[in-house]
């Protein structure tokens, strides 16, 4: 089996067996398997049908439906909540690729509504205003798979133990600056290298110390160390704006990328979307990444924000839980 099933909750409520039909839904294999189908792809943030169609046409592997793009969430201030159900339904009727939607951290009932609506994956996201500062959603109760953000290994493993089927770096959403996403993926990679070397040395005591430090089980630390990577698919997110940004994060070992404000806050969204898809697939071929860069115009890119002077650091939301 190439999909790790580590930490699956026995008897999880999200698993639905139909004995008559001989089928079972909502298993860890199906949830993590869905995320595996997204690999090497680009998930694009959209706020309406028109943008979703541009994204699909450009080769997006899925669309993420929001009420406002992260850049506009920052500008608007106030409380950011899940998107209008009507908009999600319109997009579901208009495109053939999977639809993801965001709910607030800890907001189990926003997530329930998204599940019933038919979202293919739910992003419990720090871009929205957290509804619970202490806890995240217990995701094993859902048939729908979840993706969560993480800025280090401990956060990632805690989310996986709660049932996340996919992890993405948090980055700093809506800034147009990829630096925070780079920091987060390097952090996760370095921490995995550390436990991998303990695993290779057969040093269980060090793995146990890591489990205590990360506040997770020994089993998930040992599995991660054995695999030498997260036991679920890991995407880059936060600040990706250009094809070269996407290639950079793929070269750092990400399985795919999310592009938030970078496409639809630019003045060349259709071209830019196509170019980011191309650079994500051919991330290790500098000639093709250059071709992709030629498809976009830097004068039309999202100008971006200085991450040092932000009033709101979204990446810090939900990090201690």
């Amino acid at each position, binding site marked *: 089996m190439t999909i790790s099933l580590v930490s699956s909750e026995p008897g999880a409520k999200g698993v639905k067996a139909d004995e008559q039909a001989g089928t079972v839904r909502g298993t860890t294999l199906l949830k993590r398997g869905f995320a595996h189908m997204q690999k090497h792809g680009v998930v694009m943030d959209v706020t309406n049908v028109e943008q979703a169609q541009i994204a699909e046409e450009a080769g997006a*592997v899925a669309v993420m439906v929001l009420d406002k793009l992260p850049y506009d969430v920052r500008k608007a201030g106030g409380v950011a909540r899940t998107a209008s159900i009507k908009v999600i339904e319109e997009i579901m009727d208009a495109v053939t690729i999977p639809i993801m939607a965001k709910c607030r951290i800890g907001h189990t009932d926003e997530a329930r509504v998204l599940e019933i609506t038919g979202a293919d994956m739910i992003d419990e996201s720090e871009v929205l205003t957290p509804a619970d500062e202490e806890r995240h959603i217990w995701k094993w109760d859902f048939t729908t798979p979840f993706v969560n953000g993480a800025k280090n290994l401990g956060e990632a493993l805690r989310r996986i133990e709660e049932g996340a089927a996919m992890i993405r770096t948090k980055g700093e959403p809506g800034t147009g600056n990829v630096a925070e996403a780079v920091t987060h993926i390097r952090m996760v990679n370095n921490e995995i290298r550390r436990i991998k070397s303990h695993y290779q040395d057969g040093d269980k005591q060090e793995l146990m110390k890591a489990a205590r430090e990360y506040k997770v089980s020994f089993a998930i630390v040992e599995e991660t160390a054995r695999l030498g990577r997260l036991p679920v698919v890991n995407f880059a997110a936060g600040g990706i704006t250009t094809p070269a940004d996407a290639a950079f994060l793929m070269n750092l070992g990400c399985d795919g990328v999310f592009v938030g404000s970078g496409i639809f806050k630019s003045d060349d969204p259709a071209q830019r979307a196509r170019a980011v898809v191309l650079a994500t697939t051919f991330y290790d071929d500098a000639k093709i990444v250059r071709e992709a860069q030629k498809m976009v115009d830097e004068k039309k890119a999202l100008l971006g924000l200085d991450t040092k002077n932000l009033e709101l650091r979204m990446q810090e939301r939900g990090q201690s839980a």
Partner: protein
Amino acid sequence: MTKKQLTIGVLGFQGDIEENVAATRQAMEEMSVNGSVELVRYPEEMERVDGLILPGGESTVQSALAAIQRSLPVMKKRIADGMPVLGTCAGMIMLSKRAYDRVVGETRQKTIGNLDIVIERNAFGRQNDSFEADLKIDALGKSPFKGVFIRAPAVSEAGKDVEVIARHAGRIVAVRQKNIIGTAFHPELAGDARMHRQFLKMVLDYRRAK
């Protein structure tokens, strides 16, 4: 002189590429076949392989990339010339002569087109409807094969040269047409390499005949 080593290519654009590489390696090991498994993304790589696997993922993305890279005609010609090909889920959609979506209907999606089937995308529904089910596949022996269906398609029309090799709930979910196998489910996720072994046998026969 010995023939060059057997090479299986896995289309490396998008999707569960590494899982198909692993399942093929497992099949090679179980059959004691000496060979290599490579990612293929460029037309010249497609010319070199003895057999090709089109993985699961999003077929719209894979066909958009294949069109940009001008690899659709290369794959079409090699498959028409007899190279064995296995397409799983999105890969079967890529091989079909026509695809439409259950909800959205006709789309402008380009396919390779060698497999004489019409395919309905997302035929079983959205991700919440994704399921595992045991399948009876005579070609793989008596014990059932675990079908992993993720937003899976189904075959709605099959041409006269197409052999149906598996059904679920009355729908056609796996077919064979000469050198082409297509499955609506993901044999690469079953932890059971029998389907990949079947494909490998076709590749060995093809090489012997060359």
